[in-house]
């Protein structure tokens, strides 16, 4: 799984690596086992809900990255395919005769087919170009369909959305999916299956050609491949898996509304994918996990979580365009050189003060927010498990000092971190 998507021209025989079967299969088996034992560790229902949400986002983000990362197509309306797939799944749930004859586990396939169908229609004209034209068409189509959800009540259910009941399906080996844990295993199984399929897709000639068309469409055309068809195939496949994620959403929440289609959801999935890193197959998985945690855990403790998420996103675009996955993969070279331990001390010296400084900054932001928006006379606020008066000078002084000192130390130690980094990336020499 940690195989790089971008082909390295210096290693034409990169595919030979697939020969080592244990190495290829290991990440999949580990993650499958991990997903299987996870509910044994976290048993309460709310954690299960978060994990389900995470799984759905993983499938969606991976599908999105088939476009953005592997095909170089930036879509601003991808939630539409997931949404339409989900709505279709919802309608199948409500067709009682048909639904009673199929097991619930295959429902995402139907959702995927509907997402794929829509992607075929839209893709027939939108995949002519990549870049800005594609992005604009995706935005236009996304807005169109999102606006239609209020108009076409028969399919989208208007403001109230469409709801159903998953338990009317044919029991699957006696399981009726009444409990959250059963739904969890269904979702987890689908995550593994779809991730594996998407990974295999990226290894097929079509998947490889998607990379080629992303990097140099003209050259791909000269080699005899139609750039448009290659884009079309990626788009349709991505639509299928987006639909699958919509189907999983339908199974989990049993309701779909306009919110599943609108531009905000499309924006979130772009954010998730980019945060995780578009350059590597496993990037979106990290992005989905981190973002869902941010969304659920952080939004419980602060109203301002969207500001932090937005700042993190902007910082990622500006300083680490490779995302989290890019950051992790940067350490492969030092690891191979056996110099990773050189980095440990500089990291501790720089990153811990920086983290403390950022927490101090967050405290200042929270205090400003409290002073501005809390009811008059309500001066008490609780931050980092301490309750204090948000109007007192001491609190502001402490938070300001922590910020300044933390960021100051980080600034002072940053050059030595850079030195250590250069040293760790150079082969040979005394270590």
């Amino acid at each position, binding site marked *: 799984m940690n195989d790089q998507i971008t082909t390295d021209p210096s290693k034409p025989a990169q595919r030979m690596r697939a020969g080592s079967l244990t190495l290829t299969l290991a990440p999949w088996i580990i993650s499958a086992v991990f997903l299987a034992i996870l509910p044994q560790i976290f048993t309460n229902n709310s954690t299960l809900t978060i994990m389900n949400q995470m799984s759905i986002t993983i499938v969606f983000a991976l599908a999105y990255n088939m476009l*953005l990362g592997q095909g*170089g197509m*930036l879509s*601003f309306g991808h939630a539409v395919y997931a949404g339409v797939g989900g709505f279709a799944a919802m309608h199948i749930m409500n067709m009682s005769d048909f639904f009673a004859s199929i097991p619930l586990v295959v429902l995402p396939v139907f959702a995927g087919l509907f997402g794929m169908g829509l992607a075929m229609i839209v893709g027939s*004209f939108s995949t*002519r*170009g990549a*870049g*800005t*034209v594609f*992005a*604009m*068409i995706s*935005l*236009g*189509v996304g*807005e*169109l369909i999102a*606006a*239609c959800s209020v*108009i*076409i*009540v*028969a399919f989208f259910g208007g403001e109230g959305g469409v709801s159903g009941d998953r338990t009317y399906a044919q029991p699957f080996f006696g399981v009726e999916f009444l409990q959250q844990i059963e739904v969890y295993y269904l979702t987890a199984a689908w995550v593994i299956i779809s991730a594996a399929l998407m990974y295999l897709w990226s290894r097929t000639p079509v998947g490889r050609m998607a990379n080629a068309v992303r990097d140099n469409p003209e050259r791909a055309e000269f080699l005899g491949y139609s750039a448009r068809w290659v884009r079309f195939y990626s788009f349709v496949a991505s639509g299928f898996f987006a639909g699958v994620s919509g189907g999983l959403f339908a199974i989990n929440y049993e309701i779909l509304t306009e919110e599943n289609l609108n*531009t905000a959801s499309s*924006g979130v999935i*772009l*954010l998730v994918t*980019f945060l995780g890193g578009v350059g590597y197959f496993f990037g979106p998985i990290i992005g989905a996990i981190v973002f869902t945690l941010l969304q659920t855990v952080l939004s419980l403790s602060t109203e*301002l979580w*969207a*500001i932090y998420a*937005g*700042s993190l*996103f*902007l910082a990622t*675009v*500006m300083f680490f*365009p490779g995302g989290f996955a890019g950051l992790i993969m940067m350490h492969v070279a030092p690891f191979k050189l056996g110099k990773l331990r050189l980095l440990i001390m500089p990291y501790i010296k720089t990153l811990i003060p920086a983290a403390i400084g950022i927490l101090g900054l967050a405290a200042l*932001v929270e205090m400003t*927010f409290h002073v*501005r*928006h809390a009811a008059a006379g309500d001066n008490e606020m609780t931050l980092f498990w301490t309750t204090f008066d948000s109007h007192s000078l001491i609190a502001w002084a402490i938070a300001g000092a922590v910020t300044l000192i933390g960021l100051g130390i980080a600034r002072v130690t940053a050059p030595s971190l850079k030195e250590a980094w250069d040293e760790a990336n150079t082969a040979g020499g005394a270590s």
Partner: protein
Amino acid sequence: MDLILVNLIDGLVTGLLLFMLSAGLTLIFSMMGVLNFAHASFYMLGAYFAYQISIALGFWMGLLIAPLIVGVLGAGVERYGLRRVHQYGHVPELIFTFGLALLIEEMVQFVWGKNQMPYSVPEILNFSAFAISGNSIPAYKIFMIFISISIFIGLLYVLTKTRVGMIIQAALSYPRTVEALGHNVPLIFMGVFGVGTALAGVAGVIAGPVLGTFPGMAFVLGSIVFVTIVIGGLGSLWGALFASLLIGWITTFAKAYNVKMESILNAIGFTTPENMDESMLRDLWSLTSPQIADILPYILMVLILIFRPAGLFGKRTQ
């Protein structure tokens, strides 16, 4: 007939407002080749700053100062944000402006809260200019038309008649040559970005009292502005003007005249089905033009992109 005239004026106001945003956006696009998703956010900032200034110094100072602040902020974004991201390519640039739009909206909510601000039309303009058969036209609308048209003329004059405008135009087409002639091209880019965002700021200042100053105002207008410049042709100032007016009038007329899909379908020769509730197409039959007024621009854009990807006035072939 009278109603047509009233709607023409309403559509003109909407169209010119759109134009003030799309003019800056299309200039920025022809300069950097990147669509600035945060453009409408600068429009929102303009409205909020003007509101804050108008509390202390009155509406007119707001109209003067707020766009300047927005322009400086925009130039700063170009200098310290976009220029940095530029090296990674176009897609990260687009994503950067997208993230910036999200962040600005959150920031505005952070400072001013989620409610609409009581930013209103100044007293001196709060009267009815004239009436067309009972429909009074507020003086503020005339003021908006006046401001937008003078900005358009000013922009056109600067771009085509002055030395600065010539250098800008040259820098848009041949940045390297202009740089070799001794002009500071990055500075020109930063300036154009600043002026473009300042224009959006002006639009925000004068639209805030009419359309409402609330955190969602950027989102409401944001995607329509893209649609406008895509329809007009990316990078074309005349195209932006034409498309803005077109969209302004289309949406206004679609809202003003309640055309029913049923009557159109009947006119073509289809008969209304007896059992409306059981028909799968019941939503198509009950469709009315005010319902679809807001999505008409998107339909138009998708059609344009399919049949004439360069836009109505565009020369750039993708």
